[in-house]
């Protein structure tokens, strides 16, 4: 009863809200560098951001093993996801289809996640990386499919050495993980095809 007393609602209208969030996620991943606002009202339990919560409610279900980085999932988050998504949690990030991590200032190795296999590159982990803000941080120059020339993105609160580990992830193509950066109600996509340059 104690934990249940704090269980928070999910989407007000699960069908239309999750379709709208799916569309926004798709848009973010097809146009890297674009910052989008989540088109649904949602107040997930702390420390999950509304954007990460909305993407999880949209993408996670019973067949989506989820990994929560230490510090990214409180009891309330775990219970909320269990109630609304029913997604299994895995202890090994290498078995996760979806992962949530927040490491402002810390380090996060991207090779702990599965990059898929050569025959099933779509089986890789999709990482929801919680950052402090999607603007105002050190500028990054993005290039690749979905970008006309180059795009600029300045996320604040990325893990240390993210650009370096992203280069290694980019080299695995067609394998590799996809990242969705989330901050507050905003999200930006970083698919495995995108190259990052600092500055």
């Amino acid at each position: 009863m104690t934990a249940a007393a704090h269980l928070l609602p999910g989407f007000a209208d699960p069908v239309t809200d999750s379709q709208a969030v799916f569309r926004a996620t798709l848009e973010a991943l097809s146009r890297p560098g674009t910052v989008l606002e989540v088109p649904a009202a949602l107040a997930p339990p702390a420390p999950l951001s509304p954007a990460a919560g909305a993407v999880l409610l949209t993408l996670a279900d019973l067949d989506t093993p989820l990994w929560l980085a230490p510090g990214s999932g409180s009891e309330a988050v775990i219970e909320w996801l269990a109630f609304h998504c029913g997604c299994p949690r895995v202890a090994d990030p290498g078995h996760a289809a979806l992962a949530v991590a927040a490491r402002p200032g810390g380090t996060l190795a991207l090779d702990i996640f599965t990059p898929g296999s050569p025959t099933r590159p779509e089986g890789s982990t999709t990482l929801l990386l919680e950052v402090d803000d999607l603007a105002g941080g050190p500028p990054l120059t993005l290039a690749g499919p979905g970008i006309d020339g180059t795009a600029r993105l300045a996320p604040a609160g990325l893990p240390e050495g993210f650009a370096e580990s992203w280069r290694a992830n980019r080299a695995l193509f067609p394998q590799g993980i996809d990242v969705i950066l989330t901050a507050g109600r905003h999200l930006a996509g970083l698919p495995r095809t995108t190259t990052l340059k600092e500055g």
Partner: protein
Amino acid sequence: MSDQPPPDSTPRQRWMAALARAPRRRLAEAVAALDPLPEHTVLRPPEVGLGLVRGRMGGDGRPFNLGEMTLTRCTVRTSAGHLGHATIAGRDRAKAELAALLDALLQEPARQPALLSGLIAPLIAEQAAARTACQADTATTRVDFFTMVRGDE
């Protein structure tokens, strides 16, 4: 199909079953009679889905899939912090929400006795009577097959 709750069912299972089978009007009347109307948050809005009904021939034997049926489920939380769940047959969303709300209210010690005696007990009695009547009706059409003893032995 057996409508009888298993003998080891808990009181909550029994009232949830009674609420799920009750007509919507009865649930609406019971909620309207509460004063003041209890505040509640809908955690899972009523949603319609399918459930697979499985059976066993004669109560044992191998389970088989009888077919799918439409279900509606809903979860609410009252201001007292109780979670109420309901899964009902059919697609009556309003009834699913009423049943979930009543399930949550029935968990409140202050409200439970009145609701149990005023709503749940009559519902269980009516449902049992309807079931007995239906069984009696069906029993008149029963045909018992047997083999006549042959006279050649």
